[in-house]
């Protein structure tokens, strides 16, 4: 049982984090709060991906002692998995640009309806 908790607890915390973001997205009325919730949701998913890359007693995915002798054999098990890092690295920058677009749309909404609360906007729209 203890082994089960130790090997799985961080997945549970990621899911809790994701659910916090999910609650902010569907439960909060303010649009900026929704954007913040989306940010938390995205980071939770990125966190989940990165955690699949980790190996016990492995070092960073940057090959050591590279200068000079390129012949020595590289043990893949002693380096972390680089593939999730690559996918998530681009995802973070894309996250920021989507944040920018979301904020731009938000400013446009504020100019038109003069409020950022969802229920007020829905009333004004009728």
């Amino acid at each position, binding site marked *: 049982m203890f082994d089960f908790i130790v090997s799985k607890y961080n997945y549970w915390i990621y899911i809790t984090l994701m659910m916090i973001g999910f609650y902010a997205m569907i439960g909060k009325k303010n649009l900026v709060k929704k954007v913040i919730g989306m940010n938390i949701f995205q980071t939770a998913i990125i966190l989940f991906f990165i955690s699949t890359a980790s190996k016990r007693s492995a070092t960073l995915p*940057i090959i050591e002692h*590279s200068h000079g002798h390129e012949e020595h054999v590289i043990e893949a098990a002693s380096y972390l998995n680089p593939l999730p890092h690559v996918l998530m*690295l*681009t995802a*973070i*920058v894309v996250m*920021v*640009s989507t944040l*920018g677009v979301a*904020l*731009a749309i938000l*400013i446009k909404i504020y100019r038109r309806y003069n409020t950022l609360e969802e229920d007020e906007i829905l009333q004004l729209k009728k």
Partner: protein
Amino acid sequence: MTRLTDDIIIRAVARIMIPFIQIYALYVIMHGHHSPGGGFQGGVILGASFILYLITHGLEEARARMSELKAGIFSASGLLIYSGIGLLCLILGSNFLDYGRLSLILKVIPAQARSLGILGVEIGVGITVMAVMFSIFFDISTGGIIPEDEEIKEENG
């Protein structure tokens, strides 16, 4: 947010820091091979240096250094550099973005040619990311309404 204020201390410190931030950003772009870093990170830091200038020195001076028009041109040209390198590989007779063929014109072994191709691609990515980050911040902080020069002067004075 983009108005000029009388904060002499903050402006002077920003003036001292900005060249170091920029050279650090270029270091990050160029040394992505041996240490963490690369086009995305360096581009963001380079954009942040221009944002720091915009916040501390006001809209008018910042537009003389980096205007929204320049940002648009840069963001397109970085993407063009990226796909241009890919196209060069295609012209030299291999697949798109297969930098091994660049050894024909660079006169090095294919592994080194791949390394140089990665460097070129990183530079393109860095330029695009820098310009886009600056452009997004410019639009959001001004609300998209760019005042004429006289109006900025009125606002400041």
